[in-house]
């Protein structure tokens, strides 16, 4: 989990300097004095550092040195005394990831260590789609990611409970263990239109996030039309349009009426209003009227001449 390296400032005490004349020795002593009699430091990284928890780095040696901490969102330096512990505050270590501690006297020593994410306290929960047609396979999906209070992604496995509750039906639960910080599910949409509550919660922790998917009627299942002549033409309308599970198709869904009068064809697009689509067609002779919506064709209506 940690490593120690003796880095770039290579001007460490050389044994050769002991063999040179008194001038060099004096110079060395002056150098040592300038460094505050500092000895090369040895660093020991914090064991099992956790984001947002204060920790410390053990040093050996004596004298003063410059300490640097380089992390995911920090980079600072301060003077420290060797031989004493260098304390790191909770704020210094609040982001999970790799940290590098460097101590420089004449030379620099460094040690790297990782801070692990803290306990999860929140969930990011993505649910799609916001509106789902009923009766569709694997239509609804959800992705949950646990984060700690410092927005670190919690990588260790956590159990996420997904609960799906639709009106007038029993709740369905799924328990999923996160893998690499992610838990997900997908499921088919229900048979009845209406809101579907989708919740994700972390076990043992009072964290729950809710989303709502509006389940809407699927495409029309069948079309039945009826019509009659009026002084202004032919008025046709559908019976209430429903999907294959009996849900009224949403208002605004377009039904196309087509009237064939000999070689002439008249087409009218009419939106469904309160479950029914209506249109007025102009034809005086014998006419065959049909209706279509999406991929569904309705019955044919034959009317004689006016």
């Amino acid at each position, binding site marked *: *989990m940690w490593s120690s*390296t003796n*880095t*770039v*400032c290579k001007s460490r005490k050389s044994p050769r300097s002991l063999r040179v004349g008194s001038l060099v020795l004096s110079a060395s002593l002056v150098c040592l004095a300038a460094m505050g009699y500092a000895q090369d430091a040895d660093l020991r990284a914090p064991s099992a550092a956790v984001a947002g928890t204060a920790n410390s780095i053990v040093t050996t040696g004596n004298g003063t040195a*410059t300490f*640097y901490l*380089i*992390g*995911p*969102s*920090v*980079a*600072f*330096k301060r003077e420290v005394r060797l031989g004493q512990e260098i304390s790191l505050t909770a704020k210094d270590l609040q*982001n*999970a*990831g*790799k940290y*590098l501690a*460097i101590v*420089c006297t004449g030379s*620099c020593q*460094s040690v*790297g260590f*990782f801070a692990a*994410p803290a306990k999860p306290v929140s969930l990011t929960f*993505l649910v*799609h*789609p916001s509106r789902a047609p009923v009766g569709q396979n*694997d239509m609804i*999906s959800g*992705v949950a*990611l646990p984060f700690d209070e410092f*927005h*670190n*992604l919690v*990588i260790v496995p956590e159990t996420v409970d997904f609960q799906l509750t639709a009106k007038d039906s029993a709740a369905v639960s799924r328990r999923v263990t996160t*893998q*690499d*910080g*992610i838990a*997900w599910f*997908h499921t088919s949409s229900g048979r009845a239109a209406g809101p579907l509550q989708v919740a994700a919660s972390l076990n043992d922790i009072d964290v729950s996030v809710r989303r709502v998917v509006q389940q809407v009627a699927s495409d029309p299942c069948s079309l039945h039309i009826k019509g009659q002549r009026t002084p202004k033409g032919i008025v046709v309308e559908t019976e209430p349009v429903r999907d294959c599970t009996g849900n009224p198709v949403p208002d605004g869904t377009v039904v196309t009426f087509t009237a064939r009068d000999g070689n002439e064809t008249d087409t009218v697009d009419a939106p469904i209003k309160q479950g029914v689509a209506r249109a007025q067609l102009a034809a005086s002779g014998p006419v065959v009227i049909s209706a279509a919506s999406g991929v569904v064709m309705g019955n044919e209506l034959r009317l004689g001449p006016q």
Partner: protein
Amino acid sequence: MMDRSHSGRVTALIAIALIALLAPRDSFSADSTPQVVLNTSKAAPRSVESLTERAILRDYKFAWANLDQALESNSTAPLSGLFAGTASAWLNDAVTSQQRNGISSRYLKQIHQLEAVFYAPEGDLIELHDTAEYDLQILDGSKTIHDEHVVVRYVVLMTPGADRWVIRQLQAVPEF
């Protein structure tokens, strides 16, 4: 006429000297472009479309080049548009913190082995594992205080933006 011709030669010599001076810098820039390889064969539950793969590769490479630039020059400008959310906040804090303390960092000779491990069913989130290799240099002013070749593993979350993929989480981990 003689004077003009002489000054022309001097100008040409200066130009050649400038080119010669700039050439090593240019070749250094080419070397410093991150090398990124992306493997999407293990992406699940959705497979990564080839256009998406190319976009992720392009944007991830660009993001790391700019991360290096931001931390070397202590400027947050290169970070904008490529990082979002937590990753953006952390890197902006890192730059500000470096700037305040007179520290800078360089990420040289970057090689990234990316592997897509999760691609959301709706295509709105991808998790990548990056085994990154680079020479990390840390400087206090002009003095190099750390110079090490490192291998760092990152868990990366990216989401699609309007015209690119952005990094939302860039979290180093000891192992995958």
